[in-house]
């Protein structure tokens, strides 16, 4: 286990350096942020002053090295546009993002896993057809449309829940459902397919022929090994959710990381772009690691080396 951990840690560091470098280069390729920040009638001299103030007049290599140097000390610099610490801007948004990601993710698992198993067991029946069709519709329907329909029904017509915003639990319900429905649609189909594959396997036939109870066969033998691809997929879904769900956040005016990231790109706010991308990369690395560990727990045949 220890060599595995060390190997993983080294990989993670390489990934983060690579990501920070690529983000830096790509961001700078988009052009000069001063053109967007300076007031509409700023003179060339004003703009040059602003470039110097922001440190954009220095050579690229120097800018990158000072970014890395500061980042290692936990300082991601100041946002060009909002003139506040990047770490502070991100830290403000993380709780809202985690809240929405956790609620959406758990809800999608609660929907997808039982539903996927049930329709796998009732394969090729009417219910299988209905649920599979619903899942396909859920996967095809754009998230913003689902969100808007939920708002019109539950907030404007029935007035049961707030339209948008961030506050008590009531504000969380509609955006969490919006996220969960899309993710659940994808996962349900995966659970069904994976379960079907396992149910056809030889060792399930063996288990049955040993005379094990059907419940034991399903939940001990079949369920655990069918969860391997589901865990992989669900992990990716979660990683995507925690790095921000831009469209859902926009519709529900949810102050999450996704909106922060997309606005930073629009405004060429380089330090903020680097900060949010780095955060997303950290989330992906950590979640991938957890998935690997989870494989061992689920399937004793998997060994971490």
């Amino acid at each position, binding site marked *: 286990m220890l060599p595995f951990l060390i190997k993983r840690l080294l990989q993670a560091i390489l990934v983060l350096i690579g990501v920070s470098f690529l983000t830096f280069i790509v961001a700078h390729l988009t052009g000069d942020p001063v053109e967007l920040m300076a007031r509409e009638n700023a003179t060339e001299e004003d703009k040059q002053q602003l470039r110097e103030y922001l440190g954009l007049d220095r050579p690229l290599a120097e800018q990158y090295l000072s970014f890395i140097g500061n980042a290692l000390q936990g300082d991601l610099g100041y946002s060009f546009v909002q003139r506040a610490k990047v770490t502070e801007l991100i830290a403000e948004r993380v709780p809202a993002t985690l809240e929405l990601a956790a609620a959406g993710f758990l809800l999608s698992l609660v929907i997808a896993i039982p539903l996927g198993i049930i329709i796998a067991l009732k394969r090729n029946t009417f219910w299988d057809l209905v649920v599979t069709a619903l899942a396909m519709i859920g996967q095809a329907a754009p998230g913003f449309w689902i969100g808007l329909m939920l708002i019109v029904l539950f907030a404007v017509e029935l007035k049961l829940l*707030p339209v948008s915003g961030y506050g008590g639990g009531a504000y969380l319900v509609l955006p969490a459902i919006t996220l969960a429905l899309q993710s659940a649609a994808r996962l349900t189909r995966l659970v069904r397919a994976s379960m079907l594959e396992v149910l056809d396997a030889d060792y399930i036939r063996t288990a049955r022929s040993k005379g094990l109870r059907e419940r034991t066969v399903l939940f001990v033998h079949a369920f655990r090994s069918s969860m391997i691809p589901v865990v992989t997929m669900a992990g990716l879904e979660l990683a995507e959710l925690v790095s921000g769900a831009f469209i859902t956040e926009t519709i529900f005016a949810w102050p999450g990381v996704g909106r922060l990231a997309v606005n930073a790109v629009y405004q060429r706010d380089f330090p903020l772009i680097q900060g949010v991308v780095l955060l997303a990369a950290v989330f992906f690395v950590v979640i991938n690691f957890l998935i690997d560990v989870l494989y061992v727990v689920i399937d004793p045949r998997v060994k971490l080396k």
Partner: protein
Amino acid sequence: MKLSRNWAGRLLAATVLLAAPALSPSWAQDAKPIVIASSEDVISLDPHMLDSNNPTGSVIWSVFDSLVRRDLDGSPQPRLATSWERVDDVTWRFKLREGVKFTNGEPFNAEAVKINFARMDTAPFNSVQQLHDQTGLKEVRVVDDYTIELVTAAPTVNMLYWLEEAFIAAPKYITETSPDEVAKAPIGSGPYKFVDWRRGDALVLTRNDDYWGEKPAVKDVVFRNIPEVSSRLNELRAGTVDLVIGITPDSADQANSDVSDLVKIEGLRKMHMGISIKGEQPALADARVRQALNHAVDVPTIISSLLGGSTSSLLSVVNPPNNNPALTPFAYDPEKAKALLAEAGYADGFPLTLQWSTRFDGGKEVSEVVGSFLEQVGIKPTYEAVELGQFREGLSKASLKGIYFQGWAALINPSVELVILTCGHVDNSSGYCNPKYDELVLKASQTLDDAERQTLEFQAQEIIWNDAPWLYLWRLPSFFGLSKQLSYEFRADNYLEPYLITYK
């Protein structure tokens, strides 16, 4: 671990609500503040970093006072200055309001003005503040505690205009506090006090009960950031937002509901297709070609079909009431356009690139309609969407390709409106240059006699109108949604003054 407890609690609440939606909602409160929804978030609360009218500007206008207030029609009103006079051609003297205190207890006086104006002239504030650049302000003289004199390098008619956007913060506080603190916790003398700000979500103000002026009717004001227009409108219809800013023409009707009304304002921003004289199409350097473009496009029809008749054609490059009344919009006359093109040697037309950015809604639609009109007089249009940063770079370098959808100057100040089209001016994105025009504009900006100045400005307007560096379109209309319980007179410049909102 504050965080985990927090979300676990909310998760629980969410589950409960899912199970029993009929539970009484905790978000419905009794003491209701006025909620204002904008598509943008507040950027900075530093009064000297103010660079957008709403919501940042609206919050600054509420927390801070300037010496002079700009009224809805553009006329100057007393604010922290009670009266002013011109002592000589380059010196303005202001009497300041006595007995005003900032909300941290600091007194307002001439020294406070001096400290604030000095701060505006240092980096990074001078990249945003325009007081010194635009007025030529070179000295602030403290005459006594409540009298100051502002001395400019040359005579200027624009002093009051720029003072209206120069806000005065508590002087000791801004000198002793770091700029990023000031940007989060502003202290002014305005009708409202700052309470709380969660970025990307909401900013809360409460009435300043020690305000020197008339007390606002509304006690608490919340500025919410709701990026999606349909969500802003749904909030309005659900009665959870009282005032909506930034409604697109195609969704305007949805602001009318049993609890809210749509309010239409003919804005001040002058929409046009800029004509890039130094771009890739040499034909555009000929004034006859530019006039032909103006005759080729049926602007009133575009207004009624694309904008639902919500605005009217431009009458000059200067907004009413300062426009030269002798000027009228170019008539839609394709035959005349063809004749002018032939006269200029382009009887067979020429290829022309139409560009737009995301800065203004409907850039694509407008460009395509304009292009189809131009096609009918023989011009061959191609269309190109440009990323905002590239677009702005093209504007400031006057290097866009052909003609481009743009809006300029949401203001009422003939001198400022005219100066942007002088040779080499940074806003002169079409690259137009006419020394005779420049001379008139400069002379007007230094002429202190009102009638004489107006004559010069009218002459300049006539020259620029006929030289047509723009394909003139319309004034950008603004749409607002307002709760039926409130009354408020909206400003065409999109600043919002919550202290003037009243209950019906």
